[in-house]
């Protein structure tokens, strides 16, 4: 080596002597390469003045290379650690990386390489959490009962159970073979009949999974196939009774759950009752979302019971089949409850009877802030009661009555009620045929209220500071 090191002085600037140096020597010694001996190389970000790489760097490179077999990370100095994390491959098996690496930068690279579009804000600004949640979601969404080995799911669980807080499952595949046979047998039958016949139509059994995820707080489910295209079959969108049973069991076992959402899954009264029965003594559940289902009055009654028993904060049941009786049950629950802040009944058929019941309940309730009763076949009588609510209730902030034919008289009553109110910030009265005059005055009052609310907020924050 000494002669090689001695070389640059003479050799670099005398190109004539270059050919004399043998090829391997040239490869070993970067100084022999005239390009590498240039002082500044703009294109090369790795370039450095040090001609021979430091032993430290070599070691780190080695660690990176052999990370899969011999993961050394926490023993390193912070600066070295950062370097190693920068260079680690994203293709490393999760078994190695999951519990070892907590550095966000690495998981950021993993996520962006795998999915491209990522919004880390949805995952509590944690790339690692995002990675593991989406990883698990993908595995569950692609799980085919009886075909895929359950182990594929269970293997991942110990790796990601510490990081998964939310599961947003957008599809659950039905078993492949037998449904086809069923289809052949009962081609003319309705889909619902089909669902009840074979046990094979059941989906992924959550019971095996949920009690292992000790940090799970949110669960969003859709029992259906997304993007089926022209392969549409009714039985792809089936939520069987056994599915429901296993789900109920799973929910009972998952004690940390706070938010539960199941939508577009044909949940009918029976199933909703079964689910709510298992949720009645759940310790933490606060938000329940059952939108786009087939819940009728009996289901609504069960929901009312849940509102009463548990300290729910938000209930969303829009696009269901709740009628006056169900609405009355929910209204009764509202009179007793002191925790619920948000109620969404959009696109149901509660009618005037139900609307009046709920409005009467609002006279007594002092916690609810948001209520959505859009598209509910409400008319003038409801508006009458609601105007009274507007005068008396001091907690309501957002009210939505859109797409209800309140008529001119109803509009006037609501306008009158609003003129006494100082707390409501939003009041949606679009497509309610209440007349432009009322609409305008209401919007004026709303503006005033908004200003007041804003000032109050500013003063409160000022006081807090």
């Amino acid at each position, binding site marked *: 080596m000494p002669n090689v090191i001695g070389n640059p002085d003479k050799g670099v600037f005398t190109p004539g002597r270059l050919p004399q140096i043998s090829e391997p020597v040239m490869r070993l010694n970067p100084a022999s390469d005239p390009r590498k001996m240039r002082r500044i190389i703009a294109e090369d970000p790795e370039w450095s003045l040090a001609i021979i790489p430091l032993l430290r760097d070599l070691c780190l490179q080695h660690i990176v290379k052999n990370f899969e077999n011999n993961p050394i990370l926490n023993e390193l100095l912070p600066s070295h650690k950062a370097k190693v994390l920068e260079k680690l491959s994203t293709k490393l098996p999760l078994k190695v990386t999951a519990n070892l690496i907590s550095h966000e930068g690495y998981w950021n690279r993993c996520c962006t390489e795998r999915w491209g579009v990522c919004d880390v804000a949805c995952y509590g600004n944690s790339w690692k959490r995002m990675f593991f949640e989406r990883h698990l979601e993908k595995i569950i969404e692609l799980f085919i009962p009886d075909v895929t080995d359950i182990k594929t799911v269970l293997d991942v669980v110990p790796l990601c159970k510490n990081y998964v807080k939310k599961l947003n499952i957008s599809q659950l595949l039905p078993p492949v073979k037998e449904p086809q046979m069923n289809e052949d047998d009962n081609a003319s039958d309705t889909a619902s009949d089909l669902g009840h016949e074979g046990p094979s139509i059941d989906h992924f059994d959550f019971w095996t999974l949920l009690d292992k995820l000790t940090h799970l707080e949110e669960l969003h489910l859709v029992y259906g196939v997304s993007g089926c295209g022209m392969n549409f079959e009714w039985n792809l969108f089936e939520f069987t009774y056994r599915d429901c049973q296993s789900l109920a069991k799973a929910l009972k076992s998952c004690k940390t759950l706070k938010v539960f959402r199941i939508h577009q899954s044909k949940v009918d009264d029976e199933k909703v009752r079964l689910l709510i029965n298992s949720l009645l003594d759940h310790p933490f559940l606060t938000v329940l979302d059952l939108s786009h289902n087939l819940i009728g009055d009996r289901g609504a009654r069960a929901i009312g019971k849940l509102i009463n028993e548990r300290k729910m904060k938000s209930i969303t049941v829009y696009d269901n089949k709740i009628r006056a009786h169900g609405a009355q049950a929910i209204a009764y629950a509202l009179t007793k409850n002191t925790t619920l802040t948000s109620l969404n009944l*959009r696109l149901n058929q509660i009618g005037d009877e139900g609307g009046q019941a709920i409005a009467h309940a609002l006279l007594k309730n002092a916690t609810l802030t948001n209520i959505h009763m859009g598209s509910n076949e409400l008319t003038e009588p409801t508006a009458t009661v609601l105007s009274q609510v507007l005068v008396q209730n001091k907690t309501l902030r957002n009210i939505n009555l859109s797409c209800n034919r309140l008529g001119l008289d109803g509009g006037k009553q609501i306008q009158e009620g609003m003129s006494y109110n100082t707390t409501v910030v939003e009041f949606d009265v679009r497509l309610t045929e209440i007349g432009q005059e009322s609409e305008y005055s209401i919007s004026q009052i709303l503006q005033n209220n908004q200003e007041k609310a804003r000032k109050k907020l500013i003063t409160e924050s000022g006081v807090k500071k």
Partner: protein
Amino acid sequence: MDPAENGSKEPEPEESVPSVESDIPEERIAARRLRIAARIEAKKREALGVDPNPKKEVKQELKSEKQVEQSRQRLTKLKSDGTELVTNIQVAADSRESQRRTDEAEARRQRTERLESEAKMSLEKFEDITKKWTMARSRELPQDLWEILNMQQQQCALLIEDKNKLINDLQQELKASDDRYVKDLKKQAEDIDLMIERMEEQIKNLMKSYREELNQIEKSFELERRELLDSNHNKWEQMMQCRRDKELQFLMMRMKRVEEQERQLQQLRVQDAEEYNMIKIKLETDVQILEQQLQQMKATYQLNQEKLEYNFQVLKKRDEENTITKSQQKRKITRLQDILNNVRIKHTKQDKQFREENHGLTEDYKRIMEQYKEMQKKMKHFANVDAKKFQEIWLMNEEEVKELVQRALETDRIIHEQQLGLAWEKPHLPFMERSGPIVPEHEKKKLALQLAEEVIRSKGNTDADEEWEAVCAPGTQSDSPPFQEQDRLDTDNTESSADQPLKISVKTIKRLLEILCDETGFLIESKLLKLLSPLEKDEQSLMKLDAIFMALGIENEEDVYKLADFFIKYREQQTVDSKGADEDESPGKRESHAQKETGDGSSHRSSSSDLIHPNDVLQALRGFTKEHFKPRDKSHQQSKLFNLNERDDSKDAAYWEDMVNVIPEAKLKVWDALYNALEKYHHVLTERMKLINETNGMKQQNSELRMLLHQYVNSRVNAELEIPPTQVMQVESSWN
């Protein structure tokens, strides 16, 4: 309002603003209102935690704030409009959906109605047809049958046609709804597109307007800043100008002051120089005078030095002498010291020796004392034992003697009564009653209590027994009064003073006892009092006195008299004292008192009232106990010892002699005569007895001979004999 203006010309803005000191009342009111408003605002701001900034700043900031407020309002409006525009689509979709739902519900209702009516109709038709089948069966003509069958066929076809029509309708409806579904899908896709478009547009708009507003706000802020800068700059300039002016002024002032002070300095200098010269002259003259004095002093110094030197020489000589004598003295001192030491050593030695000796002697003394004590104890013990032994022996002997006496008397009696036949009279024998060794009578004093009893019992006849005066004869009615008299006189002599009190009358004693009984109740136990309550008065007072004497330690008669005497003396002393106190004031009174004293002199001992005042009893008692207890105790003990040692045995011989002389001389003579006579009598009796014995022997010989005779007579040998003795006898007798 320009701050520069504000700073430079302060009075100007005040003129424009209504002043409180204005002449016009409306203006004054307005000014006050403004002031109140300002105060309230200041308070509000303080409450909100904002610094109470000066007014002008608030006004300046208003511009930017206004701008911000305006833009905010515009933006919120824009935003709400935008969201409304976007959500409009959703709402429209909702309303369409609800509309569709109601429509569909209606359609479904119609459909079901139609289906139901159709089903009913077809059922009716079917029933018609089935009825006709029965009709057809009843027909027999083939033509008719054919006709009917044709009809049936037609009707069936009609029925099927109806059904098919219905199916077609439904299928069409299905298709239509399918179409509608597709349309809806399309529509929804369009809606979504529209929504996205609108959202994008809104975002674009919002971004644009935000940017604009931001620009405007920035502009306004910049403007404000510039204004603020300008104003500050102006202010700065002005202040600088002001400063410059002031500096110039200060400079001028300083220069003026410097000039003045220089002048003053000059003046001071001149003054000081003059003063300095004056002082200098004065000091120089002083120096001259002092030098003269110095010369003088030097001369005197020389003189003194010579004198002192001479003195020094003399002293030196003396000192030498002194040293010599000192050394001599020292030597002497050392020598003496040696002697002193020697003497001291000797002294200590001797001291030690003597001390040891002394110690030994004291030891010896102690030992001897102990031995002596031991000896005394032993002696006491032996004395006691001896006394006891003596008494026992005495008693034994006495008993023996008494027995002997008794026997003698008995024999005397027997002799008198049986032999002489005379009545016997028991002689008077006093010593038989008593026992134990003879105790000298004078030591057997009467107990105090006995005296008290006597005194009290004699209550009734005190007046008569004035001269009973147990005083003189305190003893019991003893057999040997002369002895006792003698003894008493002896004791009187020894006790000397105790002689007098013995003459105290019974009355006085009684009185004294009564007083004691009344006054010293505290000495009696309460229990005793309780027990005494049921007794007679005399008994009571006796018991009480007993307790009191116990407490006071009074044991015998003598003590009682002492006590009485003491009381009397005490009283006399008291009266003397009181007299002494009275003397200065009234000598006459004293005389009368003395007279009274003398007058009462004779009766003073007998009169009880004068004995002592009850109030003084306690004090007197205390004095008495103090005086009399200790000496008496000692004497008591001594006398006891004395008693043991020197028992007077003079009377013993007489006593025993008495015993011996129980049987008088005359009687003895009688006895002798009797003895002789009896002796003679005895002699006769013995003679007689002898004779009797002889006769008795003769009698027995007779009887024995008779028996032998009888035997011989009655024996067989006789019979065998030729002549039985019996016959002999008979013959003999007959002969006789």
